[in-house]
């Protein structure tokens, strides 16, 4: 029986109410501030020379946030700096209703009660400047050190909750993360960046931005090297034969990335590349414990040419892209009786995967009637090379070749009808066609009601799908461990959501939402025999939840955000709570100016409640935790110099994330207290 703890919930709700009421007092104080009246008597030259306090956070994107047919969070580069977020996973951990787990190879997104360690985030669509990052094999959204863009190059991140297939397509099952990169205007000249941290971590970056007559460009290159946690202990392997459970120097993480973007007239060309090597310390997939040969390399790259133009009142965006993804996984095994007799005592089995694809997209938006804005578009993608072979690195050893190709296209449209000045109806529909299973239609309907300025109600119904990816459809290895199933159907989700957002002046904002998700044909692992698994459309999930958030931002430089999320997710097939699903998520983020708005302190706390799951036939749980991170950051203390110092897991708590059945261990230990010093210097 999984019982909830009313005591804890009561405390949380009470404390949130408390912070809401105190927020109101703070608001009243803020309103008393005198508005600078001498501004109007200044001439334009004086005004252009004034150093201003830039507004950051949600208020700048109010329309994007309030009129979107979804609950949206906008994260800015300032917040990334002030909280010392190292990866997208760090950003999501601080975002209402999200969390992330780490199996010491990849990070997995948790949202709306749903977190599948090992699913490579195939149910969240990740975009960089509108370009899809999810690859053509695993459809993975890389949010760890394998993410394609250096965090210092991010201008802002829009996190769109709920199924958004109608506009964004197949992957937008639980939401969309759209990362917008900085332009040359934000990094003009040369910028050098560097970082040092615990676990022998170092990073470096050089960026160059230039504006010229008719255009601009930005070039940047980054490198990262971390020894990682070099003495990870796994009690499951506590045996003299396996180094007493200690994975020594097995957590190494190295990456480099390049990014270039530029525009000339109406064209924008962007290119990016990332390559990351990670040792795998967990001995997953039954590999030899503490063997440095077991590692993974992810290499993702793309070129994207975009054309933006307003033609007689119609906004037109066209896009042409070319993408590549390579995955090399090395897995060290001891020879067993099932292996060919001439094999050495231990050998490496390798996944050497390569996908190449290109595609095009066109989108047009036009105000058709005074109150009707129509957007329509089409997209085609040709996955012309998908190779997922598996072989043993043994001369004359086993080899399984596995090549595919497929094409898909989509048509989509969205209508925004302003029924009244206070009421918008947003209706979208998308049709996707896949060679593998045929077509899928995703509708979405939203009513956005703004009875008075500052108050927004949204009612949203959405239907989305996720196509089975190449990995789920075709993957097998030389051990014949996977029974491939080419008849997989898409997963579908129906989502109902009600949102209430309230703005109190330009200072405070609250958001409350409830949702109900019903997921059918969920693709899951299934044991077909003791030695073989298969992906199948087996699970059905129902999830009910709610989120509450209060956010404030003061001209004095203080900013605060606190949220609580509750979700009850149930697997209808097993009639039990959904595995890996925490009921409660609590967040607090706080920024305070320490010295003249040049030095800031940022403190964040994240709480994730207990997660229960079955692991190799046993019911286990990862305990709930509350983790605190603190960052001291400074901007322009010296001209051009930004610096920050962060302490992660300040109280050195023991944290564990759940493991999948690919691991012998049920819990994966996370890092204790670590430090990072980061700087950038522009000249």
């Amino acid at each position, binding site marked *: 029986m999984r019982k909830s703890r009313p*005591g*804890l919930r009561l*405390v949380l709700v*009470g*404390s949130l109410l408390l912070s809401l009421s*105190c*927020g109101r*007092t*703070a608001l009243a*104080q803020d309103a*008393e*501030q005198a508005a*600078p009246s001498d*501004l*109007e008597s200044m001439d*334009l*030259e004086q*005004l*252009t*020379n*004034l*150093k*201003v*306090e*830039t*507004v950051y956070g949600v*208020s*700048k994107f*109010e*329309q994007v946030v309030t009129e979107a047919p979804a609950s949206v969070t906008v994260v800015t580069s300032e917040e990334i700096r002030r909280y010392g977020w190292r990866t997208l996973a760090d950003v999501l951990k601080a975002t209402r209703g999200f969390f992330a787990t780490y199996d010491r190879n990849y990070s997995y997104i948790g949202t709306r009660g749903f977190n599948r360690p090992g699913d490579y985030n195939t149910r969240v669509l990740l975009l960089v400047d509108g370009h899809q990052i999810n690859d053509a094999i695993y459809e993975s959204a890389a949010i760890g050190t394998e993410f394609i863009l250096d965090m210092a190059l991010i201008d802002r991140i829009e996190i769109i909750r709920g199924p958004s297939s109608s506009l964004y397509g197949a992957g937008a099952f639980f939401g969309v993360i759209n990362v917008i990169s900085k*332009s040359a*205007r934000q990094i003009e000249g040369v910028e050098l960046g560097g970082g040092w941290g615990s676990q022998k971590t170092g990073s470096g970056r050089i960026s160059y931005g230039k504006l010229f007559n*008719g*255009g601009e460009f930005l070039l940047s290159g980054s490198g990262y090297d971390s020894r990682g946690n070099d003495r990870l202990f796994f009690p499951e392997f506590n045996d003299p034969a396996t180094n007493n459970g200690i994975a020594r120097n097995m957590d190494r993480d190295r990456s480099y990335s390049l990014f270039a973007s530029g525009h000339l007239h109406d064209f924008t060309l962007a290119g990016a590349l990332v390559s990351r090597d990670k040792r795998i310390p967990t001995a997953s997939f039954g590999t030899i414990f503490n063997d440095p040969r077991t590692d993974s390399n992810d290499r993702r790259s793309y070129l994207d040419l975009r054309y*933006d133009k*307003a*033609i*007689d*009142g119609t*906004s*037109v965006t066209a896009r042409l892209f070319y993408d590549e993804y390579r995955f090399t996984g090395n897995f060290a095994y001891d020879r067993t009786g099932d292996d060919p007799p001439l094999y050495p005592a231990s050998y490496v089995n390798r996944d050497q995967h390569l996908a190449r694809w290109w595609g095009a997209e066109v989108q047009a*938006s*036009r*105000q058709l*009637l*005074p*109150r009707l*804005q129509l957007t329509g578009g089409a997209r085609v993608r040709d996955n012309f090379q998908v190779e997922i072979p598996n072989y043993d690195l043994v001369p004359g050893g086993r080899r399984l070749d596995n090549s595919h190709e497929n094409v898909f296209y989509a048509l989509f449209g969205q209508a925004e009808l*302003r029924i009244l000045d206070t009421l918008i109806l947003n209706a979208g529909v998308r049709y996707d066609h896949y060679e593998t299973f045929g077509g899928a239609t995703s509708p979405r309907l939203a009513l956005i009601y703004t009875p008075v300025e500052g108050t927004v109600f949204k009612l949203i119904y959405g239907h989305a799908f996720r196509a089975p990816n190449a990995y789920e459809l075709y993957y097998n290895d030389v051990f014949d461990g996977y029974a491939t199933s080419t008849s997989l159907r898409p997963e579908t989700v129906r989502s109902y959501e009600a949102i209430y957002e309230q703005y109190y002046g*330009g200072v405070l904002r609250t958001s409350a939402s409830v949702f109900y998700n019903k997921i059918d044909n969920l693709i899951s692992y299934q044991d077909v025999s003791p030695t073989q698994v298969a992906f199948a459309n087996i699970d059905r999930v129902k999830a009910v939840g709610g989120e509450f958030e209060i956010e404030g931002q*003061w*001209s*004095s430089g*203080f900013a*605060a955000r606190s949220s609580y999320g509750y979700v009850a997710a149930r697997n209808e097939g097993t009639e039990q709570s959904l595995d890996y699903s925490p009921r409660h998520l609590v967040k*607090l983020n*706080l920024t305070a100016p320490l010295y*003249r708005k040049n030095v800031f302190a940022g403190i964040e*706390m994240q*709480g994730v409640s207990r997660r229960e799951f079955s692991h190799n036939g046993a019911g286990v749980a990862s305990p709930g935790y509350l983790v605190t991170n603190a960052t001291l950051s400074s901007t322009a203390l010296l001209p051009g110099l930004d610096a920050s110092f962060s302490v992660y897991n300040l109280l050195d708590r023991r944290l564990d994330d759940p493991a999948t059945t690919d691991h012998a261990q049920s819990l994966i230990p996370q890092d204790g207290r670590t430090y990072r010093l980061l700087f950038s210097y522009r000249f």
Partner: protein
Amino acid sequence: MPAIRIRRCRLGLMLPALLCLLLGGAGRLLAEAPQEYQVKGAMVFNMAKYIEWPTGVFSGSGAPLVVCSIGRGPFTGALEQYRGKTVLGHPLQVRRMQPGEELGECHLLVVSGVEKRYLAGILDQARKRSLLTVSDIPDFARLGGIIGLVEVEGRVRFEINVKAAQQSRFKISSQLLKLARIVREGE
């Protein structure tokens, strides 16, 4: 492990209490630099003086200059304080508009925080009515707007699309042009 659980609960209560304490103190500190949108609002108010308006746009010498703003967010709010002030003898009126609304009575249109897909339609409508368009949307001047406000190293600067201004029969004074980056459409 009940002891740990209690401790966790107490921490949960402490978080917002801490937040409360800090927020209570936050309001008392005074801002040192003016807010971005106060400056942008002052710029809109001031720049109207540096524009030679097409003849006949105002019905008389004391007729109001109507500043319309489209989009949600702080820009609209920052304009409110100039309501009733006079520019070149015209009292200022400030109106909030929705995308798609009739812009017939506007003279100056401020666009802020609207999604890009609305922009082409708004600009098209503004062009037909010869409105002076001002916005802080990135690349506004390049996309066909007249005056863009861009942030450069913590300062608000102008970008002016001279061709768009001429098409809508505005003459922009050399003083204003001197302060601006001149942008050609499509660049």
